């Protein structure tokens, strides 16, 4: 394992210090418990939005803290859900009197920890709602699984909910919009290589030189299927078919297409994936009217990508276009 780190158990703390030093003009960092919060939090009368999850997915979530998106993010250890005390303190720090929305990716650990935090927050008199994202079509949402994982749609849900909160919409509305984004979004991912967490020091799985893992999550866990490597267009077809047929997305639909790199894939390749996705959707009469291409929800240095679609309507489009001013997503500001 070769990483630009000082010690495996200092990774999250050292990185938080870097974030504070870099963005101290716009963000505040608390170390114990650990969370990142907008410098101007709490914003009076605005719903506060808190997300969080294991580290190793950067820029998610810390890079999305700022005007028009998250009010706070709670980083756990690498690939480990943060703890309720972090979430509680973050919730208190962003409560401007209009309540707080927790955006939680559907993983057993995240859900349980946020649940506890939500209970604690309510016990302190704060109105808390939680939305659990679960857009990963690689996992069946059934009694026999922990349900679909929350992946790419989380980034988009955070952006769009953030815009709604910025408009001073009440908590119930902001939560509804967040749920709508989740309900209209689907994702699937592929890994060409594993990744290595600093604390384990070993690759998360072994993969042959001509194999790929289809249906991966974002924690370096093995995927649903191991298959022989294929050209980009075929991989895109494989992922996009599963995504499109699940909701389903139909001819005439307008979508936001999000091609996400897992951390170790060159942008050059993501552009190729985007091209192939565009062609795939065009053939089905689905129009991309908004897009996001880059490394936004990553698995350390894993090579691979995920494809997320969100069915758009006028309101979601408008909220997507609204100004956002965070370290990792910025426009109109």
């Amino acid at each position, binding site marked *: 394992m070769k990483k630009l780190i000082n010690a495996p158990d200092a990774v999250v703390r050292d990185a938080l210090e870097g974030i504070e030093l870099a963005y101290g003009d716009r963000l505040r960092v608390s170390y114990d418990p650990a969370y990142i919060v907008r410098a101007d939090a709490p914003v009076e009368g605005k719903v506060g939005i808190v997300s969080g999850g294991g580290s190793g997915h950067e820029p998610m979530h810390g890079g999305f803290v700022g005007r028009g998106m998250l009010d706070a993010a709670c980083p756990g250890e690498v690939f480990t859900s943060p703890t309720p005390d972090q979430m509680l303190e973050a919730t208190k720090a962003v409560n401007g009197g209009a309540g707080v929305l927790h955006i939680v990716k559907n993983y057993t650990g995240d859900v349980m920890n946020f649940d506890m935090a939500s209970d604690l927050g309510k016990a302190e008199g704060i109105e808390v709602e939680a939305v659990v994202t679960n857009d990963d079509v690689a996992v069946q949402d059934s009694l026999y699984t922990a349900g679909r994982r929350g992946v790419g749609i989380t980034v988009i849900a955070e952006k769009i909910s953030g815009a709604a909160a910025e408009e001073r919409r009440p908590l119930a509305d902001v939560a509804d919009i967040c749920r709508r984004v989740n309900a209209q979004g689907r994702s699937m991912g592929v890994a060409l290589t594993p990744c290595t967490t600093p*604390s384990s020091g*070993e690759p998360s799985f072994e993969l042959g030189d001509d194999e790929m893992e289809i249906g991966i999550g974002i924690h370096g866990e093995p995927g649903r299927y191991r298959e022989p490597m294929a050209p980009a267009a075929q991989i895109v077809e494989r992922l996009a078919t599963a995504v499109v047929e699940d909701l389903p997305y139909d001819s005439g639909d307008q979508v936001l297409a999000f091609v996400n790199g897992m951390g170790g894939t060159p942008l050059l390749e993501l552009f190729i994936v985007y091209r192939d996705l565009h062609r795939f959707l065009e053939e089905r009469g689905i129009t991309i009217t908004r897009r996001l291409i880059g490394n936004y929800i990553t698995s350390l240095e894993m090579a691979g990508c995920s494809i997320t679609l969100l069915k758009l309507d006028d309101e979601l489009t408008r909220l997507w276009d609204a100004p956002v001013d965070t370290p990792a997503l910025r426009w109109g500001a």
Partner: protein
Amino acid sequence: MGRVTEVATTISHEEILDWIRRFAADIEAQRAELVRLDTAIGDGDHGTNMDRGMHKALEKLEAAEGADIGATLKAVGMALISSVGGAAGPLYGTLFLQMGSTTTGAGTLDVAGWADALEAGVKGVQARGKAEPGDKTMVDALLPALEALRRAQAEGADPAQAARRSAAAAEEGMKATIPMEARKGRASYLGPRSIGHQDPGATSAYLLLSSAAETFASS
């Protein structure tokens, strides 16, 4: 206690503390193994998470001298909740918190008291995680351990024997997770690919009970 000829009929507060310390030591010793197991069907952090949590728990115990068994177990639970994270944090945290609730104010526990505490803990785990036996989770080690403990209690076993029998049942339960297909937690994403691997949480749960057996046997 401490004298070989006598058979202890209760578990002292000091023994509970020793148990926590031994569990922490066993987790540290098995940290890499737990990581390895979790890498196969999860995200490779279970050993690191539990080790970080048990170190925090020991720190807390250092600071909080002299309390009763219930306070000690609750302190451990709180430490785990605020330092482990992931699935294991809330689950083990709840287990210890619930064990602490049933033992509030207690200075010693007999086998029944120990079994009541464990039952409250395991129920807490199930209430929080909704896992059933056969889902390939820590519950598959915890429930058999609890059942064995109840049987031992019914048969009038002393704490050392009872703990030994519940640890043996936990070990069997842990091994029984190998052929299971996971239906809860991260391993469930793998579907049939989870078969053939031992569940990391069931493994740490076995350590929880084996460390109790070793502690109570040697006191």
